[in-house]
């Protein structure tokens, strides 16, 4: 019970998230040497050979995120991914977990609106690697979706959703995504809704699996203590028995809001939780670099951002205030967030709006641009200083079809950004007059 307090956990975590989502990498003369090929089954493989540590990291990524759900069946995508790990090729959830634990392997994964991913970290020694990969392969290729496990997990998920519906942080983010995306699938909660999860059947999961877990188009990322030949064999094995489904259709384009939405929700918490935003950008968007560098100055650069300076450092109104773009297959959100005690919530919100308005109207200074570039470019080596970080870049580059030299050209892309481009991009892409604003813990509610 040695609790730790971090000076700015929340902001820092989001800044990392935003950076990761944007996947800016670049340079490093000793750059990452990525090998790419296709398996016989039609999956794309991205491999980095590295024998420094006796570890192998693998991830496999499918276009099977929550945006594949419908409002009526919200939750099917997430439950499918989760249930795959809880019963496969006749092995129970207990057996799967024990077999992984017996060799010290770690089964992980990621799930968001675009993507469903499975990750495996194992020692590279033969016995450990073989057993871990055997279980991993069965999870991917022979999921059983046991009926009784589905019933049990649905009850757990529903309890979790009911709890989330009482907590200000989850209430605000759910309301934010719903208001921002309306009927677009990005509005759907990744965990589903209480009444839709209750209705999920085994047939729904089997159908979803057959449709979205095809080998064709799946992206396999591998880094670690394997030769190219060994990596090729691993990639063939884990993709060989996947369904023969067609590549998933593109996610529909996002419609921009034509009028503002402000939603105030009463809550007994001592703080108001405030979110503001607008649909942002997609991967590969030509405005991505100017917006990313600009956002570093606005609210992405932690302690040196304008939002932190104005709202926290000068006035002590918040512990955390941040902004980020989360580029996705289609326009992911631009979001500003903060929490402050209720009686100063209106003042803080006004200040945030002024800071944003001023930023969009006047842009940034040459000195700010120089500082932003120095941090982003100078910080590049820390983006690729571990196998687990590189694995995530491989997955992202592969999943979003970014150029193979993405990491190598990153610094020059940042270097090229100008003050004028940032001002132009922000004023074209963000329309504060049509922003969504969510306030949970409405200061005026009785």
């Amino acid at each position, binding site marked *: *019970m*040695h*609790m*730790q*307090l*971090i*000076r700015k956990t929340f902001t*820092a975590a989001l800044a990392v998230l935003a950076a990761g989502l944007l996947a800016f990498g670049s340079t490093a003369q000793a750059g990452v040497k990525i090998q790419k090929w296709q398996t016989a089954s039609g999956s794309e493989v991205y491999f980095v050979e590295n*024998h*420094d*540590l*006796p*570890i192998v990291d693998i991830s496999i990524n499918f276009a099977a995120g929550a945006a594949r759900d419908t409002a009526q069946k919200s939750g099917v995508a997430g439950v499918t991914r989760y249930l795959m790990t809880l019963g496969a090729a006749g092995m129970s959830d*207990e*057996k*799967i*977990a*024990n077999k992984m*634990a*017996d060799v*010290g392997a770690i089964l992980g994964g990621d799930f968001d609106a675009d993507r469903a991913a499975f990750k495996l970290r*194992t*020692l590279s020694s033969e016995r450990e690697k073989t057993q871990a990969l055997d279980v991993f392969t069965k999870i991917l290729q022979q999921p059983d979706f046991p009926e009784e496990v589905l019933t049990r997990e649905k*009850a*757990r998920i529903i309890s979790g959703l*009911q*709890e989330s519906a*009482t*907590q*200000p942080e989850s209430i605000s983010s759910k309301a934010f995504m719903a208001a921002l995306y309306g009927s677009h699938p990005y509005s759907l909660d990744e965990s589903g809704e209480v009444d839709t999860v209750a209705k999920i059947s085994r047939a729904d999961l089997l159908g979803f699996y057959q449709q979205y877990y095809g080998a064709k188009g799946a992206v396999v990322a591998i880094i670690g203590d394997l030769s190219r030949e060994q990596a090729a064999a691993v990639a063939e094995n884990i993709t060989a028995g996947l369904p023969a489904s067609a590549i998933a259709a593109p996610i529909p384009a996002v419609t921009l809001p034509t009028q503002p939405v402000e939603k105030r929700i*009463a*809550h*007994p*918490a*001592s*703080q108001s939780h405030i979110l503001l935003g607008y649909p942002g950008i997609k991967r590969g968007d030509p405005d991505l670099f100017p917006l990313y560098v600009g956002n570093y100055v606005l609210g992405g650069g*932690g*302690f*040196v951002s304008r939002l932190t*300076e104005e709202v926290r*450092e000068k006035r*002590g*109104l*918040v*512990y955390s205030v941040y902004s980020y773009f989360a580029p996705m297959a289609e326009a992911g959100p631009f979001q500003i967030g903060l*929490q*402050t*005690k209720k009686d100063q919530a209106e003042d803080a919100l006004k200040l945030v709006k002024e800071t944003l308005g001023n930023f969009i109207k006047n842009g940034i200074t040459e000195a700010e641009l120089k*500082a932003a570039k120095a*941090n982003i*470019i*100078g*910080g*590049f*080596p*820390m983006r*690729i*200083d*571990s196998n*687990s970080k590189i694995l995530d870049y491989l997955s992202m580059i592969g999943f979003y079809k970014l150029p193979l030299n993405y990491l190598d050209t990153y610094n020059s892309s940042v270097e090229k950004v100008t003050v004028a481009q940032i001002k132009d991009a922000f004023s074209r892409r963000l329309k504060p007059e049509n922003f969504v604003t969510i306030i949970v813990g409405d200061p005026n509610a009785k």
Partner: protein
Amino acid sequence: MRTKSLLILLLMMPLSVFAAPSVQEFKLDNGLKLIVQEDHRSPVVVSQVWYRAGSLDEVNGKTGVAHVLEHMMFKGTKEVKAGQFSRLIAAAGGKENAFTSTDYTCYFQQLEKSHLPLSFKLEADRMANLQLTDEEFAKEIKVVMEERRWRTDDKPQSKVNEAFQGTVYRAHPYSRPVIGFMNDLENMTADDAREWYHNWYAPNNATLVVVGDVKAEEVYQLAKQHFGKLKAKALPVRKPQVEPEQIGERRTVVKAPAKLPYLLMGYHVPALDHPETDWEPYALEVLAGVLSGNPAARLNQRLVRETQLAIDASAGYDLMSRGHQSVFALDATPSEGKTVAELEAALLQQIEEIKVSGVTTEELDRVKAGVIAADVYKRDSMFYQGMQIGTVETIGFSWKILEDYPNKLRAVTPEQVQAVARKYLLKDNLTVATLDPQPIDPNAKPQGKPHVH
């Protein structure tokens, strides 16, 4: 004065073909300890300054001051004005932050390796020359109060945890929250923070940990150049404040807006004291692993998956404690329609089973396999390795105990696991904290079943 240079030998035979990490230890004349772990995989460096000052060292009426001072450490010195610390690190492409716990306060930077001198220059400067102004304090204390609201006051499980600590400990300072009580924060003054800085911020109360693509000898010279001129201080006397033995179960209930109840229970158990000869702390670690080390471990398998009494359940134990106190904790959330009382009985039943029937060799081997693998996986994170070194050094052990840690766990027998369960997990030594969920609409009727207690 340079003391020692050692090479960590890898424990596992199959790994012997991989380069062993090299750790070296130095001590400056003013008492500052420096530990350098060379890791040449990437051209980066992590630099961490660990102060042996945490909430453990606070006194009543001034709770939270260790953490407030951590915030104030970014508010300027004679040479570096408020806010500039962060800007200088950012301009070098770096990340920086700090964290405070019961046992320590740590400041860190992650940089491209050529910028290590900047980190040392700034850390040495603020170790001695902090300019703690009333004006900056007045703003920052408001930030910390917002942090408390966000982190504890509006988070039901955090409130349960705070109440649990205050119940399981009565005399020991671990009873008080690291963030501090709100009333103490409201009444804290800049002088309280100055006093804290004056008392504890000194080279002889700090450990500098550097992990990265560096040469240990060069780091030592650099440390002497920047930190060498700082003066050692006489540190305040630390009282042991040993917690009296608990005889009789304790209970506390927290009411907060939530849907689900929550249960947190724990027993006083020993922390690591003599790393070479102790065995109980290692057995307690293995016990925690048997109960919740993986998704098929006992608590999740039996309470979540089989009987479905809980939607989650876990056990935890931390053998590292500068306050020489630890708790073996269990926590769980009941399933819809189940009460915390039913869940508590089920958790106690799991403990009872271990006392009566022990644990299997298979379960032990599984926990040990995880420990061995984790010891390899950690080498993928320089920051985490620095954290481990800094934590054990600040508690008062040598980083060298990390080397032998996997072997210590591997040596634990089923009989030892059963023995610590029998010796410490006793009803008279139990503290139970529960969350009684309240509706978020104050006009609504309470949800769920009333709670037994």
